[in-house]
């Protein structure tokens, strides 16, 4: 086909584009992936009474940590899905929750006697937690990757890392509904490790799965 004909065909099909469509698609992907993550957590793990759990401070700390990192990942993914878009404040917003949880962990360290450090740090499930975060992140990553391929990521490694961070954040927030660990030291170590692993795996997968 001649280029001129192509242009004629394309401009004939130029429907108006609603602003905000990129974010809407990513948000929809997060919702679908989040539901998948919730199905995994509540389907595979033993029953937990959410109402009593929700009365504790640590419950909201953990859910909030995952959710805030998810917001940072969302903003980075939005930038990554648009060719040539400057990052703006997104990296700082993504880093802020980590700084916050580390500050809370340091506060715990100061407050607790040294003999209690190890218990607070390892909790009951230090080995399980990062893996649980990784697994719950899988449905979110799949949904976000599908959404991203319909957008236009041009730096695939970075886009993969952003999608991984978003998936890890949402996955961790969902897993936190079930998790019983009360300490900020635990969250700062093992949640962060799980989410960082998601971002790292995302960066590895990006060039393969996000190509369009």
């Amino acid at each position, binding site marked *: 086909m001649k280029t001129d004909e192509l*242009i004629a065909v394309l401009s*004939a099909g*130029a429907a108006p*584009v609603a602003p905000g469509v*990129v974010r809407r698609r990513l948000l929809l992907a997060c919702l679908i992936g989040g539901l998948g993550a919730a199905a995994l957590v509540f389907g595979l793990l033993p029953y937990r009474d959410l109402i009593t759990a929700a009365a504790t401070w640590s419950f909201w700390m953990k859910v909030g940590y995952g959710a805030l990192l998810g917001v940072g990942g969302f903003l980075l993914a939005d930038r990554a899905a648009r*060719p040539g*878009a400057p990052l703006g404040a997104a990296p700082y917003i993504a880093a802020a929750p980590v700084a916050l949880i580390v500050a809370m962990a340091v506060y715990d360290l100061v407050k607790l006697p040294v003999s209690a450090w190890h218990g607070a740090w390892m909790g009951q499930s230090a080995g399980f937690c990062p893996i649980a975060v990784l697994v719950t992140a899988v449905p979110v990553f799949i949904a976000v990757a599908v959404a991203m391929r319909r957008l*236009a990521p*041009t730096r695939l490694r970075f886009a993969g890392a952003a999608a991984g961070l978003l998936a890890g954040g949402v996955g961790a927030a969902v897993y936190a509904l079930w998790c019983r660990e009360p300490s900020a030291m635990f969250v700062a170590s093992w949640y962060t490790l799980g989410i960082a692993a998601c971002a790292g795996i995302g960066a590895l997968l990006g060039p393969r799965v996000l190509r369009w």
Partner: protein
Amino acid sequence: MLRGLAGEAKAHGEMLTAMSRYLRGYFGKRLGPGAADLEDLVQDTLLAIHLKRETYDTAQPFTPWAYMLARYKLLDHFRRTGAHRAVPLEDAGELLASDNPEEGAVRRDLNRLLSALPPRQSQLMQDVKITGLSMEEAAAKSGMSVSAVKVSVHRGLKTLAKRVRDEDR
């Protein structure tokens, strides 16, 4: 581009036509003379500009967006044809290097940059750097001395260069 996003078919077509010229220049330089797949690559990229137009953030300049799409398509082309060639990340202006900056696609980006300067300096920059008047002609037009024009244009260039660097960060 903006009017194309609003659904104006004619404006959209004009934008694509202008882009096809830029793309032919950009790819032509990188594929070498007489490349058989040049036109395929141009069409492929036009299609991407059309299909992915929702990813253009209207608050950002248009040129870097189009440049990154074109570069992505070029890399993709090299990957598929098995040619292992590095495509350096150049200035987005490279996309338009083969054409005249008076054209519409860059006009908005340029105006946005120039609007950061005081009006008189902005006018001088337009006259000297875009229209191509000599320093003497611009001085006569603005009623300033030739050396004042030179200083003003030089400072304007420095300001703009700094702004572009800041925006890219």
